[in-house]
Each structure stands twice: as structure tokens, then as C-alpha cells.
């Protein structure tokens, strides 16, 4: 009876562990997305600016003086503008972005239109985290099933701990792996469980809903996205045809007025309807930083102002949200981390790293307990090593290649197809590591060399950023770009840690050959 539980835990676990590792590893890098996003692009090397100080009128002239065509071939209305403010937490960016124009970014200091890099490694990490490997839908669905399996593993793990009384005395390295796999993942279990539930919703939600949608709507539709949505996405306001042109109150004053209506709020987005018209309306969307667990992505606070007399037309605070909105927000709060400040982010990153160690220990446990002549062992040993070590090297390769590759070689065309060099490099690293592992069979030496390599790559990244770009750590510190300064410092620290780790790696703990 107990053995059966162990067997199913092992069977399901070994099938999904590598997917879970990929998701978790790049999830940790995605926690630090704001800093990576600023670090990787010289266009984003600008000092922090308060939203009050931005000359919004001047910036919006950049939008209204250009003509844009929509998807249906008609000219887009220039008086409906949706923009994201420079918001480090929510948008992981320090530029103004016009949301209803494609690839339209503005520098908040000078209000000039700028073109950031088309391919960013922070977005690549995010894509791998959500399962869009090779941009294919198959991996997305596989990642969804993986998160269901994670929920199963959590529940069966709890049952195993209840039924078998494990003792925490360590004699061999196998017992060492077993103990720490159990303890580390037990203490972080609520988080892992929540990641499983929400991950399944993100990746499988749309695909698993047709039957229930059809049943609840009495067969009207199979697509859940066609049902009237009153949560998750707020509908646009009504925008009547432009009638009479007049001058509105300045946007900065409206912003101040909107801010004074709330006790504590951070706005990250603004929507303008009928700009410079008699019916002009402005909607400010934000979150409440001190209202934990109910004010983040799905339960947004907003205010709608009349732009001609600054009257409040509509207002919603986080406490006014419906029961579902608040529940969803409470679940998503610790997955998105969109409202987290610097230090909570770092603490959360460390918690996620303990989960990662627990996972690596689980893989080691399986490898050290399985017979070596089994087929699954022969397949999984090189595969798991190449994915675990490949992720480390590929991520540090992304950092290193970011400032080394010259501007003209960021993308290339091969066989009439468009490729980004860094993306190709990313997948190539995994392949090369796999070949290296097949050729060189000594696991200890492979692990040691991989840590050396990624340590060197991270150090190269710091050096290349300091000497290859016009910004070095002294300049970034002096000009107040603390995010970039601390990213450089922490990359160097991680590089040193990896170097020592590879030097002090205990040989007796790598028991598999």
C-alpha cells in the first residue's frame, strides 16, 4: 500500500521533473525581469523619473502627429490613446509605451520616440517559463499537464510523509538527497501547490473549458473567451465621434487630481478617450501597494475623470472588487509578483531557489537509486544533466552574448526565414552540452566544467557591459541608475559564487557515474 504510493509519486515525478525544472529556473530569472530588462538595452539606461515630472502633453504630440493604420486598413483614431507609464513593478520597464500602437516607445525625459531592441532576453526567459519553447503550442500544453502533475505530486507527497514516518538521520549521500528533497519541498509546499494550480489555469484553462462552457451557456458557444467577461479584462469606455475641439485641462494636473482621490496608489496605465474634445475622458489604472493580496493584476483600481472639468465620473478601489476578483487576485498575487518591491522580490527569489535545490536533489535521488542498465536510466541521465546544466550555461550565455554581439548581427536570414542570433544561440547551447555529455561520460567532471564555464560567461557579461557599452558601473551609479548598477554587481557576485562552487564541489556526493 505504501509502496504503491511511492511508485506513483516516482513515476509521475520522473516524467515531469525536467519540465518543472525548466519552468522554475526561468521563473526565477523572470522574478528579476525588471532589472534584466533595463540592463540589456542601452536605450533603457536612463535614470528613474517620477510620473509627475513627465511632460505628458509633449509626449502625446509624438503620437498625434503620426498616422497609423489598423488591421482593417482604416486610419486609427488619434484621440484614443492607451499608454503605460514607466512602471518598474507592473510593466518591468522605464519607458513610456503606447499600447494601441505597435512597438511605440517614448523616452520619458526627452519625449522622443525610441526603438528598443527587438529581441530581449528577459522576454525569452519569460517565454521559456510559460512553456513557449520553440514558440510551439505543444510545449505549452505539456507545461500545463506538468502543473497538474505538480498538484498531484504535492498531495501524494503529503500522504507519503503522513503514512511513513521518515527519520532525518543521514548516513549516505542517497539519504542526504532524500532528506533534503523532502524537507525543502515540504517547507515550500504551499507555494509549489499554488504554482501548480495557477500554472494549469494559464496553460490549460482555455483548452479544458469547452465542455463546461457549452453546458453552462446551454450550447451557445464552446469558446470561453466569447462569454461576456466581467472580470480579468476591463472593457474599453465608450468613445463617441469627435464633435467640438477645445483645450482640456493639462494631463499632469489631472494626474495629480487622480492621485489625490486615493489614499495610496501607484498608477501604471492611462487611457485617453476623445482627447482634446468636448467629451474628453481620462482613465487612470493602478494598484494599491499597501493592500496586500487583493490589489494586483486582476483586481485593479481605477478612476475615470472628465478631462474638461476634472470631475470624477467613475472610481473603483481594490476593496470594491467582486468576490471572484479578490479570490483570483489572492491566488495570483504570489505568482505574478507584479506589485513586489526590490527586497521582497529578492527574498522570493531565494525561496524559489530552495525549491530549485529540492528539485535537483529529487533528480539526483532518482539517478542514484535506479539501476544503471535500465533503459530509462540510459535516456534520462544525459537528458537531465544536459537540461539542468544547459539551463545554467544557456542563461549565462544570454547575458554574455548580449553585449558582445555587434549590432548588425543581432538577427540574420537563413533559407528565407528570420532568426534572432541570441535565440538560436540559446537552443544551440543545450545541443552542444548534450553532445559533450554523450562524449565525456564522467558526470563529476562535466558538472565541474559547466560551473566553470557559466561563471566565466557571467564575468564576461559584466566586463562586456562595462567596456563594450558607454556605461560602466561608476557612471551608472553617478547618474542614478541603481537598478543597472546592482545588476552588474550581482552578476559578478553570482559568477564568483559559481566559481567557488565548482572548485569545492564534493566528489563523494556525485554517486552516479
Amino acid at each position, binding site marked *: 500500500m505504501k509502496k504503491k*504510493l511511492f511508485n*506513483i509519486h516516482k513515476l509521475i515525478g520522473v516524467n515531469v521533473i525536467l519540465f518543472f525544472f525548466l519552468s522554475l529556473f526561468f521563473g526565477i530569472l523572470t522574478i528579476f525581469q525588471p532589472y534584466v530588462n533595463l540592463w540589456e538595452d542601452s536605450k533603457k539606461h536612463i535614470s528613474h523619473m517620477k510620473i509627475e515630472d513627465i511632460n505628458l502633453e509633449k509626449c502625446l504630440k509624438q503620437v498625434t502627429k503620426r498616422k497609423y493604420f489598423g488591421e482593417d486598413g482604416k486610419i486609427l483614431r488619434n484621440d484614443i490613446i492607451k499608454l503605460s507609464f514607466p512602471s518598474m513593478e507592473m510593466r518591468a520597464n522605464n519607458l513610456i509605451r503606447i499600447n494601441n500602437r505597435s512597438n511605440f516607445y517614448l523616452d520619458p525625459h526627452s519625449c522622443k520616440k525610441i526603438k528598443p531592441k527587438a529581441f530581449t532576453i528577459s522576454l525569452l526567459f519569460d517565454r521559456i517559463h510559460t512553456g513557449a519553447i520553440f514558440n510551439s503550442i505543444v510545449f505549452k500544453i505539456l507545461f500545463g499537464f506538468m502543473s*497538474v502533475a505538480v*498538484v498531484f505530486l504535492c498531495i501524494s507527497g503529503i500522504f507519503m510523509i503522513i503514512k511513513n514516518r521518515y527519520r532525518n538521520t543521514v548516513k549516505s549521500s542517497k539519504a542526504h538527497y532524500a532528506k533534503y528533497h523532502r524537507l525543502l519541498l515540504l517547507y515550500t509546499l504551499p507555494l509549489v501547490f499554488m504554482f501548480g494550480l495557477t500554472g494549469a489555469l494559464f496553460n490549460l*484553462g482555455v483548452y479544458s473549458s469547452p465542455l463546461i462552457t457549452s453546458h*453552462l451557456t446551454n450550447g451557445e458557444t464552446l469558446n*470561453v473567451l466569447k462569454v*461576456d467577461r466581467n472580470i480579468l479584462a476591463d472593457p474599453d469606455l465608450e468613445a463617441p465621434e469627435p464633435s467640438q475641439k477645445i483645450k482640456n485641462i493639462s494631463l499632469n494636473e489631472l494626474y495629480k487630481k487622480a492621485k489625490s482621490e486615493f489614499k495610496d496608489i501607484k498608477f501604471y496605465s492611462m487611457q485617453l478617450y476623445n482627447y482634446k474634445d468636448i467629451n474628453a475622458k481620462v482613465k487612470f489604472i493602478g494598484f494599491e501597494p499597501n493592500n496586500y493580496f487583493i490589489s494586483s493584476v486582476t483586481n485593479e483600481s481605477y478612476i475615470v475623470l472628465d478631462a474638461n472639468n476634472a470631475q470624477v465620473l467613475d472610481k473603483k478601489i481594490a476593496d470594491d472588487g467582486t468576490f471572484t476578483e479578490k479570490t*483570483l487576485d489572492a491566488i495570483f498575487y504570489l505568482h505574478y509578483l507584479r506589485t513586489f518591491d526590490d527586497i521582497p522580490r529578492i527574498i522570493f527569489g531565494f525561496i524559489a531557489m530552495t525549491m530549485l535545490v529540492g528539485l535537483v536533489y529529487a533528480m539526483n535521488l532518482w539517478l542514484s537509486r535506479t539501476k544503471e542498465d535500465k533503459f530509462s536510466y540510459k535516456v534520462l541521465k544525459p537528458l537531465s544533466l544536459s537540461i539542468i546544466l544547459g539551463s545554467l550555461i544557456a542563461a549565462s550565455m544570454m547575458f554574455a552574448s548580449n553585449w558582445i554581439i555587434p549590432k548588425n548581427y543581432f538577427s540574420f536570414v537563413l533559407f528565407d526565414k528570420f532568426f534572432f542570433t541570441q535565440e538560436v544561440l540559446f537552443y544551440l547551447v543545450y545541443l552542444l552540452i548534450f553532445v559533450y555529455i554523450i562524449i565525456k561520460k564522467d558526470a563529476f567532471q562535466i558538472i565541474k566544467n559547466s560551473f566553470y564555464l557559466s561563471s566565466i560567461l557571467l564575468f564576461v557579461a559584466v566586463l562586456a557591459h562595462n567596456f563594450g557599452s558607454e556605461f560602466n558601473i561608476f557612471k551608472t551609479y553617478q547618474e542614478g541608475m541603481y537598478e543597472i548598477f546592482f545588476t552588474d554587481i550581482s552578476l559578478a557576485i553570482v559568477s564568483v559564487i559559481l566559481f567557488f562552487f565548482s572548485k569545492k564541489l564534493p566528489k563523494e556526493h556525485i554517486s552516479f557515474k
Partner: protein
Amino acid sequence: MLVKIGIYMILKSFFMKDKNNHLGVIRLTFGILGSLALAYLLIMYIAKFLQFSIFENIVIAIILLPLFWSLFGLWIIMSKTKFNSVLKTLIPFSILYILVFGVQ
């Protein structure tokens, strides 16, 4: 004779308690696919009783799906005989099916 022994062996392995700890194809199929069917019917039944808008009901139900899937899966896989695992799937399935779609 051989056929008789074969049928006897199959029936025995189907109804008797397993001596080894192999999970087996029957248990795994019913444990994974059968429990999905059960969990899906259960969330449909729950969603009928929620008082929010249709979209909210669907989202809440879909969030609960992985939880019920894994609970049912664990319950079915842990059954003592293979016959038990089939029963554990079919009986709740018929009950839930009647509850959700009604008797025609």
C-alpha cells in the same frame, strides 16, 4: 485447458489483491483518464451552484479542476484490486453524470 487457465489467471489478477507493487495498465488508465472525467463532472456540478456570472463560474471551476483531478487520481490508484479501481471510476461517474445531465 490453456484458455481456461488463462481466463482464470486474468480474473484472479483482476479481482484478487496484488502481491507485488506494480501499478499496472488498468490502474494507470483509470487513475489518469477516469479521474479526469470524474473531476470534470464534479466541477460542472459545482459550477451549477455558484451564484456569480457565467464567466466567473467557469473560471472558478477550471481553477478547481487540477485539485479534483489529482485527488480522484490518487484515490483510484491506491485501490487494492484492479476491479476496485474500475468500480471506483464507474460508480461515481454514473452518479455524477445523472446529477449533472439528469435522467432522460
